């Protein structure tokens, strides 16, 4: 019927790259995370990756990296296609260089954005997830200033996540770009999977968003997470 009205074929169209959502996990792997916490964290990260890969839209949109901080800070997984990424093992030891960790995470997000721009790839506002079970052992003021500047200009979303009851909530609040500087709290290592389930659903929503759309992430409380205001 409408066959004579078709002048385009699929092969006549341009195939623009999928809009990317860069996400950096900035993880505390200091000595206090030794044992069960670090094992559960790795399982949680693994679950997160698998959840993204199983989402038809998010798998082509979400790009992941991992920065870990202990006495030193390291990018253990740089941005790449998720199918080519293997999650490295996590080893807990040393101090908690949170400030340096966040600064490294900001650097690699900035670098990724530049790469997108150079290649004409559209992207969403980057996300950083900062997870810790303790207190920073380095100076965090520079990192906090940078995060706040980006957050105030709506150029970064940072979710601070306290693991257990010993995390420095006040410093995490300073990093937070969430409403009322909220901090998410994972009660213990056994709930990491719930957190990463919430995270995967949240990033999947962003990866499907359209201009002007207000994204409402799933309620963290539905995922056994507490919210510290």
């Amino acid at each position, binding site marked *: 019927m*409408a066959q004579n*009205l*078709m*002048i*385009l*074929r*699929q092969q*006549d*169209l*341009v*195939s*623009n*790259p999928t*809009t990317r959502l860069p996400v950096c996990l900035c993880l505390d792997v200091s000595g206090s995370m030794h044992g069960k916490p670090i094992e559960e964290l790795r399982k949680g990260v693994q679950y997160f990756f698998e959840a993204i890969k199983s989402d038809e*839209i998010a798998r082509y949109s979400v790009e992941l990296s991992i920065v870990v901080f202990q006495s030193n800070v390291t990018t253990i997984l740089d941005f790449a296609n998720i199918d080519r990424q293997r999650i490295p093992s996590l080893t807990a030891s040393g101090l908690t260089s949170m400030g340096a960790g966040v600064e490294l995470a900001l650097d690699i997000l900035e670098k990724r954005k530049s790469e997108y721009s150079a*290649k*004409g*790839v*559209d*992207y*969403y*506002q980057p996300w950083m997830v900062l997870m810790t079970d303790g207190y920073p052992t380095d100076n965090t003021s520079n990192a906090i200033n940078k995060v706040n500047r980006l957050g105030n200009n*709506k*150029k970064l979303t940072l979710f601070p996540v306290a693991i257990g009851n010993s995390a420095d909530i006040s410093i995490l609040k300073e990093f937070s770009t969430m409403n009322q500087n909220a901090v998410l709290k994972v009660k213990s290592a056994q709930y990491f999977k719930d957190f990463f389930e919430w995270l995967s659903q949240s990033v999947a929503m*962003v990866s*499907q*968003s*359209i*201009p*002007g*759309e*207000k*994204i409402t992430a799933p309620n963290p409380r539905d995922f056994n997470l507490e919210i510290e205001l």
Partner: protein
Amino acid sequence: MSKWKIASSYIIGQGHIQKDIPCQDRTFKLVNKSSKGNFYGLSLADGAGSCKHSDIGAEHITKKILHFLNSKFLYISKKKNPSNYILRFIEKELKSLSHKRNIIFKDLSSTLLFIAIKDNKFIIGHIGDGVIGVLDKNSNLKTLSKPMNGEFSNSTFFTTSTYYKHRLRIIKGSIKESIGFILMSDGTEESLYDKQKESLIDSNKIIINWLNKNSETKVEEGLYHNLEQIISKQTSDDCSIGIMKRC
């Protein structure tokens, strides 16, 4: 004096269907033939995703802007920088609609793209994302106005973004060698605009030239089918397109 054919269409995207959001893209065309010169206008708007009445805002502003351009064409084409003048009209119209329908002003947000032609002069306007292109008689297709996005993909400028004073891009000129124009929303952009090269792909020429030997009605029907069966398959967003061809 040249004559123009105009056709346009829009279709709801899969993402809107799944989220139970109405189609927020709209197009409108206006032809006013008079002894003082014929006016040809084409407009397109893409309502903001999260604004629940942006479809109403898009529909209203696509119509009003063309009637405004029709009545003020000469003044606007002579005015050195008419952006603020046109923006004031857009704001006034949407505020009036907001008041009349008891809808929050921001809920009427949309992008806006338009072309108005009279006496071989054109006025082109663009707020937000979407693309405007021109075809010349040597079959060169050029991007006249690129998407006006914020840094991030889901951020753009809207008719109601009153904070951004420079959100309306105006291009004025003489038709001369131009024989066709095309407008598209960001949904259609995914298929017909190469973002890496910032250029419109050659398929746009086929679409514009479709008006050469076919009636506006037939081309509109065809545009709808091509949006439905080909272009909308590449995006979850609504898709809209408008074309003008000198004949």
